[in-house]
């Protein structure tokens, strides 16, 4: 059985990737309605953090079984 950390890594990787790409898209084509602090682009850097954390967990556990 795959360890739980494998699935945690996978879901963070997927969600982080989508949030990061959305942030990049909004950087190039800013939305009309702006949120507070939108100028610091939280979806770009938070998406990267999630993607890297998820990627690390996924890579570390992808060959493990428990």
């Amino acid at each position, binding site marked *: 059985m795959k360890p*739980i950390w494998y699935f945690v890594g996978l879901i963070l990787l997927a969600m982080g990737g989508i*949030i990061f790409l959305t942030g990049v898209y*909004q950087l190039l084509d800013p939305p009309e309605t702006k949120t507070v602090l*939108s100028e610091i682009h939280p979806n770009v850097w938070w998406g990267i953090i999630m993607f890297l954390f998820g990627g690390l967990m996924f890579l570390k556990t992808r060959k493990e079984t428990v």
Partner: protein
Amino acid sequence: MQAIGLTFIDWIIILIYFVFVLGIGWYLKRFTKSEEDFFLAGRKNSSWVAGLAFLSANLGALELLGMTGNTFKYGMYVAHFYWIGAIPAMVFLGIYMMPFYYSSKIKSIPGYLKLRFDEKTRVLNGIAFAIMTLLVSGINLYAMALVLHTFLGWDWNISMWASALTVMGYVTLSGLMSAIFTEIIQFFLIWFGLFLVSILGIIEIGSLGQILNRLPESMNTLWSTSGDPTQNGMLIHWAGIVLGLGFVLSFGYWTTDFLVVQRAFSAKDLRAARMTPLLASFFKMALPFIVILAGLIAIALSNDPNSGFKLLEDGGQVNYDSALPLLIARYYPSGLVGLGVTALLAGFMAGQAGNISAFNTVWTYDIYKSVLNKKASDAHLLWMGRVSTVVGVIISLGTAYWAKSFPSIMDYMQAIFSWVNAPLFATMLLGMFIWWITPNGAFWGLVAGMLSSFLMWLGVKFHWFNESIITMSSVQSDMAANFWRAWWAWLICFGLTIVISLFTKKKPKEELVGLVKGLTEEKHDAHLPFVKRPEFVAIIAVVVLIVLNILFW
């Protein structure tokens, strides 16, 4: 009024979560072959897995929204629920109680009552717990639909049925293991989905110090105003916090509520089981940096007329639960909104899955096998576990519709805990540490404790007597009343159990070996170096707890 709007990307994020949890349930089904796999996740989890699940089972979205809202209402005093109101009890469970629970190989808390006392005490607690669990599960479901309807404009029926059927799907497929897997995913989604609110709030306001400086003293300290109930937001004296919350409610919940303790039973060995609540305690201490901090940020923004931040109002009443969703709407752009909503959804669903997986175990072992079908085979019990999961979800849906018709039953949730858990903690404490406590003493003490808590609640509700008799204070709050009622119920159960035990038949000492301190050999982890023992981790947890309390005194 709808506070949060979702884009296509947000829906994709939510969809990924649903596909994941159902997929995990399907994947784990092939590993769920025996009743021990279904009810105890095969007893093979590491302390990290069991520890995160232990914490997450308690970390429902209702708690996240409610505690952020309560912080807006009561100030930093709400952090007591996470620090003194949790950590001493979790440490006590790991160090002193877990060896008796785990080593006796019980499958549930009522199972311990059967071994230590007798069948009638087990069935009494089993029935009370099953009713409480289904009520809480249904009320959670209703609360989730209410939140999704209020803040996202979603349809009531679709919200309730979609989440209930998803939970039913993955818990029926693989029982506790899938509940634990989804709880751990929920833990990470909550941190990634909601901690960013606190970070962005600090960036907007300037610093943590500036947030605290914008609040009145009654709201921004933990203990310094607790000597006089009129001087703090919660209107409570420090004795009520220490005795009611820190001792009875906290120990009653964290050491006897099967919903959380069941996660420790899934650990692979005694050391992992003892480490379960100890590791969880560190994450519990960190949670105020999401929940309390968000509430304080909401107060600071509300006090600033230029911020444009104002909580929603329903019929002239402030909706405190709107604090967190409004902060999400304020700070989160597309994509992150989906993540924030998924974190709340995951919290609701994992909370419900926790309740259902605890219910199916107590029903199957402590009511069905104990009373209705004593000769049931293992295969039959596995089947019964799956059936009771389906029935439990259906009853929860019924309770949710009942709650929708009578919204005031939402207010009863805290009260329900003080009816069941507070007296049970007295029974457990006496049973585990004093050998001459008798089965009749435990049973009648528990009955009296539960009844007295219920009658105190009824008495105040219907004005039979003044609340000040219970709280010993001229100023009142619901929270203070809950704390004090729990204390009195515990004391009544504790006293009566001792008195009745003095006059009734004791169990022979040889039957209590392994169940009671003093009659059991205790050399847990003695072969390990001190830094690897649970006792060392417990000391660090207590030191961190003391430092946090001093920092925010």
